[in-house]
């Protein structure tokens, strides 16, 4: 369960539209916003992969200008990786034929 602290920035005039939009995401907790268009959020997803997809979607939002990450905890995943329970090798790429 990666958890991150993120400041999502938009132009101040679009703040409410963006907040409304963010509210629709289960994995986004909004903790506050300021008049400059900074929205303080915590993102929690099932995997880093899900978090990445989420950030990618947010990044593509018309009014979101920047996703500034300040903190990331991945201890669950790291522990599982260290125990060999999950692998970060999802690709199965073959060696090139050179």
């Amino acid at each position: 369960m990666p958890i991150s602290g993120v400041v999502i920035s938009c132009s101040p005039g679009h703040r409410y539209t963006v907040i409304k939009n963010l509210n629709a995401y289960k994995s986004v907790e909004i903790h506050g916003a300021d008049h400059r268009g900074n929205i303080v959020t915590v993102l929690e997803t099932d995997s880093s992969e899900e978090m990445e997809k989420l950030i990618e979607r947010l990044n593509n939002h018309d009014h979101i200008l920047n996703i500034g990450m300040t903190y990331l905890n991945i201890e669950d995943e790291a522990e599982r990786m260290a125990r060999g329970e999950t692998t970060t090798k999802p690709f199965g790429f073959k060696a090139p034929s050179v």
Partner: protein
Amino acid sequence: MAQTRREFIKKAAALSAASYAGLDLSIDRGSVANANENISWHRGSCRLCGVGCRVELGVKNGNPVGLRGVPEARTNFGYLCMKGMHFWKCMGHPDRLVKPLYRKKKTDTFKEISWDEALNIAADEFAKAHKEGGGEAVAYYGSGQALTEETYFFQKIMRGGLQSNNVEGNPRLCMASAVGGYLTSFGADEPIGGYSDIEKAHCFFIIGSNTAEAHPVLFRRIMRRKLDNPDTVKVINVDPRLSQTSRIADKHLQFKPGTDLALLNAMANVIIEEKLYDEDFLNKYTTFKSGKETVDFEAYKAQVAEYTPEKVVTICGNSFSADDVRETARWFANSKGTVSLWTMGLNQRKQGVWANNLVHNLHILTGQLLKDGADSLSLTGQPNACGGVREGGGLCHILPGHRPVANEKMRTQVEKAWGVPQGRIPPKPGLHTMAMFSAINDARIKAIWINCTSPVQSLPNCNLYNKGMAREDVFIITTDIFHTLTTQTANLVLPTCFHFEKTGVYGCTERRSQLTKKAIEPPGDAKPEVWIIREWARKLSEKLNDPVIAQCIKPFEGLEEGYELPKAIWNEYSQKLTAHRDNDLRGATYEVLEQMKDGVQWPAPTEEYALTGGTVKKFVKGRDPMADTESKDDLPYQFYGPAHPDRKLWIWLRDQADPEEIPDSEYPFYLSTGRIIDHWHTMSMTGRVPELLRANPYAHVEINPKDAQKLGIKPGDMVELTSRRGVNIMPAKVYEGPVEGMVFAYWHDQHKDRMINKVTKDAIDPGSKEPEFKICAVRVKRVSGPQPLKPYLVG
């Protein structure tokens, strides 16, 4: 994770983000202490781009478990981007190289060998090549991702030990034109100001850079400045392609690739016509140059007068108006402070140095320099292109401390510092990157060491150069953390430590050197490069029976490799090789760098001064200690850089000149290339991080909707891109990004069908020798509807 611990971590995350926005959350701060239980935090730099963001890596039981920004760091003030947040995954990745691998022939399969065997083979092969052809038969090709200690030490062995100036690095492919621009315009490499100008600027002139995606944390600062001052701060984006960066722009000028020289001259013309220039500044500090001649303001005025806004609009492709040019010039000149920013869009060009000169011209002309909020700031793509390669002697024509190798006095200084006989370093510069790989093509170079980079994929027109690397009579050693397409051409592959698994310094865009100390153990038998170099050089000295090579490593014998060894190397470099040079780093000792949250900006001649953070503005008396010690008159600005004997800034008369290849009836489109937010360079690191790979698993080509309609191309269709050199097939993204008549492709993909450098052109800038990746001519053809594709990485 237990519920309570999860809650603690979420609260800590919320408090972290809130503290940046200045929000006071009613959350108990004890959560932070609980969340941090048993985690030790280690400060360092992110290594995934040239911004130099400071980050702390959280380590628990020897494993990376978290990351957080360093709020006090003047590079990033605690913010990180998505790409930066994922680099920890390279650390425990199962694809990591963990044993030295060897094969006699390139068609054999690799077998694991011991370090002793590996170093013996490396020394044997370099000794053999050296006996056959001397210093010209061996080469080192390094990287802007290598630590300064590594680049410095490698080039010391090559030059002082093997008497070879064949020392190059991938910054030749991205930064060489910026170096040429700074040296010829300001007399000294690297910017005068830095990031701190962003918060004081009133106009941003962003040209040839998609800052939002390539340098996201820096873009955040520009965005904040604009959003907080919407009416008084202007953002101008000049690029053939609309990008995320354009979202904050007041004005976006799209132009036909390669025509921006005309546009920059037109801006100068408007500035002169409307008397917006700073006459006093010009009189005191400026020389006008046309080729080898010194000319005057009138000559410059007459030259740019040719570039009327109306004429230039036509040259640039009629996608903006003459009034847009005038307004852009006025914003630039009249603002209280203008910062220009650019990257590869200007550098990777046959006219790369000229394009850089023309941006600098505008700053000199208007006096938009040397004051807070004004700078001509070239952004670097890699974390240590500046610190390691440009400053540490990592290119064929420069010795450490910005010393030209062709200058005897400079060579003697270095030889003395190293304690090697005078005359040991050859006077002739070595081969630049494209010449180096051409020499491999015909086996003039017999042994090459490629460190932490993948030229098989990153050279332009790569099919041509890859032939040489496949030769059996060229011995290739690679040092890397993962397999790359280049390790597949190697005889010997040596596993190295990743960032935070070793200690060393990176110098980012703004002359800032920052230390990252070892925080976790490397996997398997991976070793830091500095250890590899020392051990190899000792064997080399024995095999060549050459005590001078042993002399090169003598100060470093017996030192522990995780900290003491890099510290001793840094100490030699900073104390002996940068003393009294413009990049004086004597004050930036490890002791000082360890104390500094964000490192030191040179010049910083003393520790006491370095502890203040160093020099924010070069050349300004009272703000740059060297401007005081090197002062020759009463003027407040002192241009003491090594390249301008007249100690002036030079305005260059440069005309519009076409790129090497322009579209014709056979190849009717411009092709430009670049990188996206999630991937970095050849993807050998970011491609291993599943999240980054999945976000953009394969390269695609962006096509303007009008062109797509003409060619019958729909989103996702497979499209063939053909140039005079090679072919790619990749999916199309139909998008109002590139200007009509141009397509844009990303260059991170390692798949043979989508490796865009098979298509790009290897024309080079005559001054900087940097290739023209950014512009070539292609044919574009739809080959089928959408196809399922799999991402591909060398495994």
